[in-house]
């Protein structure tokens, strides 16, 4: 005979109760709420404001941000091309925007970057603004997977592409 030790293992024990609560809380948010939240995220974060980010568009799982060219953001003084670091920060932030726009519906609070891979195809044109668009193509209970790209003039001629994974932090119930 097998002796009982502790609590019996119920088949649904692995289900995180907070995840089930989330499902019941899942809702569609209005475009106005989404744009308001996105605008706060793009303009109220100190680093985003310091880089002069502007929200171009947002929809569930997708977002687009512009960084205006500025003298103090130049990476190569010989050419006047914007620094790679600015593009890195822009892509990272845009990925965050795409995730937030999608995860708002699930009641998530914030995201933290786990890893981010960036390929630089070519330098931006001298004195050119840079636009980034990101797409959160998969959201699990705890991880978001995102692709993004940055371009100066033509979206089909990117200056950089990014692929990242982010950890989702849930809002405290």
């Amino acid at each position, binding site marked *: 005979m097998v002796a009982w030790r502790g609590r019996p293992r119920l088949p649904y024990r692995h289900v995180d109760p907070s995840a089930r609560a989330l499902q019941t809380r899942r809702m569609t948010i209005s475009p106005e709420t989404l744009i308001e939240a996105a605008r706060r995220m793009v303009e109220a974060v*100190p*680093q985003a404001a310091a880089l002069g980010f502007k929200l171009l568009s947002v929809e569930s799982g997708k977002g687009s941000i512009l960084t205006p060219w500025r003298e103090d953001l*130049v*990476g190569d003084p010989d050419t006047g091309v914007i*620094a790679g670091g600015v593009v*890195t920060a822009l*892509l990272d932030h845009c990925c965050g925007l795409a995730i937030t726009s999608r995860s708002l519906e699930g009641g998530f609070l914030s995201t933290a970057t786990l890893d*981010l*891979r960036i390929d*630089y195809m070519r330098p931006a044109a001298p004195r050119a603004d840079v636009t980034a668009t990101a797409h959160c193509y998969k959201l699990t209970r705890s991880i978001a997977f995102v692709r993004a790209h940055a371009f100066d003039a033509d979206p089909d001629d990117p200056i950089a592409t990014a692929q990242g994974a982010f950890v989702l932090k849930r809002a405290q119930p």
Partner: protein
Amino acid sequence: MSQAAAQRLEAFLERVPYVRFLGMRAELAGDEMTAILPFAPHLIGNVALPALHGGVIGAFMEMTALAQLSVIAPSPKVHKTIDITIEYLRPGKAQVIYARADVRKIGRQIANVHVEAWQDHRDKPAAALRGHFLLSGT
């Protein structure tokens, strides 16, 4: 390292406007460079925690790699980033962050560089970066 190396590093930091935007500095001890990013409010990415912006930490490590390359592969032009992979290991606290670059391989055209950034403890890195850089002609 020589006086010339220190001058090359200083020239790189002075010349790149974005380095000044970040507020980044660097010190050479022999041939070992330590990059320093003092905390400033405009580097914040999460006001609630507060935490440094992930993009700032990535950009700082990328500039650390470029600064190290400016010392060991002197060139009148700025070297170009080909690709970088950033791993975030701990949240970047709202305080000074340091980084060191390890040039793993330097060829005729391409350099492979690993960078590690830390805050309180060198053995508890906040983030790491691996990247390839296209060397500009000397």
